[in-house]
């Protein structure tokens, strides 16, 4: 008589971004391999994940990844939805479930959303549409909408610059006690969230020295930006999805706090490597 019950191996992987490990459980070895390739450099050995997701794989091709994202909260549970995935996450138990097909893009979106929610809840950081790089021990952010030059400035980075991302920057306040209160304590972390360059950032971090708002023009120049304008442009480039009044307010204050502590300038540049002579 054949066995009616057979054991199913549960495979897992921890993806650590911004110092926060998220564990993904699956029963599909091929999917796990896909994730290991996709998040190489961000795979963590941590046994203490901040969040743990079980992934249920649906048939390929189901759902539209171009559909709008909806992120809502009810009774302590978050629901994350797009055409190509549905996910639930309960922060209290640190567990959740994702239903998607075996592709890396859906889970990538879930990870981004979860990080935006955690950072907004903390009120001490955010994800930003910005390239970022470390030079001389300091991190520089280059924010702008699609076409503003994030990929271009990343591509032009000199050999002594470490690319953190060409698309989505991870900003988090350093709250260690040994960091003095009056210091600018914001750190930029590398992310695996790529843009046109399709190159993962390095999984390292550094204190943020300046945020540049990108513009392309006939000459290279750097101009100061008033805090109000800086806040408007930063908020316009913030990744935020939650339909949640309290989190919206926290994200707003977090962005305003950032521009009141970190220098913000407008960087107008022509697309050649000389622009980096002004940075660092």
């Amino acid at each position, binding site marked *: 008589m054949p066995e009616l019950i057979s054991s199913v191996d549960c495979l897992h992987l921890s993806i650590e971004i911004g110092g926060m490990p998220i564990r993904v459980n699956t029963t599909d070895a091929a999917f796990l391999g896909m994730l290991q390739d996709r998040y190489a450099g961000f795979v963590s050995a941590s046994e203490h994940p901040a969040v743990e997701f079980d992934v249920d794989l649906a048939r390929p091709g189901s759902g539209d990844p171009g559909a709008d994202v909806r992120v809502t909260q009810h009774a302590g549970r978050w629901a994350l939805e797009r055409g190509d995935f549905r996910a639930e996450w309960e922060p209290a138990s640190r567990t959740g479930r994702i239903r998607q097909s075996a592709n890396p893009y859906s889970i990538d979106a879930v990870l981004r959303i979860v990080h935006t929610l955690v950072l907004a809840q903390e009120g001490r950081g955010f994800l930003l549409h910005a390239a970022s790089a470390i030079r001389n021990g300091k991190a520089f952010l280059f924010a702008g909408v699609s076409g503003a030059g994030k990929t271009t400035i990343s591509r032009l980075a000199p050999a002594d610059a470490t690319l953190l991302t060409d698309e989505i920057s991870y900003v988090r306040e350093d709250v260690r006690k040994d960091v003095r209160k009056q210091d600018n304590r914001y750190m930029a972390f590398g992310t695996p969230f790529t843009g046109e360059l399709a190159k993962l950032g390095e999984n390292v971090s550094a204190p943020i020295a300046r945020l540049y708002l990108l513009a392309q023009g006939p000459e290279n120049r750097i101009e100061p930006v008033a805090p109000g304008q800086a806040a408007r442009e930063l908020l316009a480039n913030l990744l935020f999805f939650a339909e949640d009044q*309290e989190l*919206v307010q926290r994200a*707003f204050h977090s962005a305003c706090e950032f521009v009141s502590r970190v220098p913000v300038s407008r960087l107008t540049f022509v697309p050649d490597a000389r622009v980096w002579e002004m940075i660092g």
Partner: protein
Amino acid sequence: MSRLYVARNTRVAARNLDGEMMIMSGKDSTLFTLNKTATIIWQAADGATPLDEIVERQICPEYEVEPAAALQDAENLARELATHGILDVSENPIVPSNPPVTVTAGDSR
């Protein structure tokens, strides 16, 4: 003529950045920047002080305008801010349930 009372809406977040008052709606994430007059009204909108008193004490001295004309402009402005959910407007004093926190740049929270 009835008096008008104004109160800061509790569902918005406000921040004064280098003298520029920025307000974000918690409902739909719309961002507003208040001009100087709107900022005066916003900051004085405690729900208990009638708008005419705010105008007389804080707007007329600032702009050297006739109280009646200034009040009319202020009422129009207050009602417009109310349509955006920034202010609550009533002909009776408004008891704030949970006042929004306004933070000035550089303040620790």
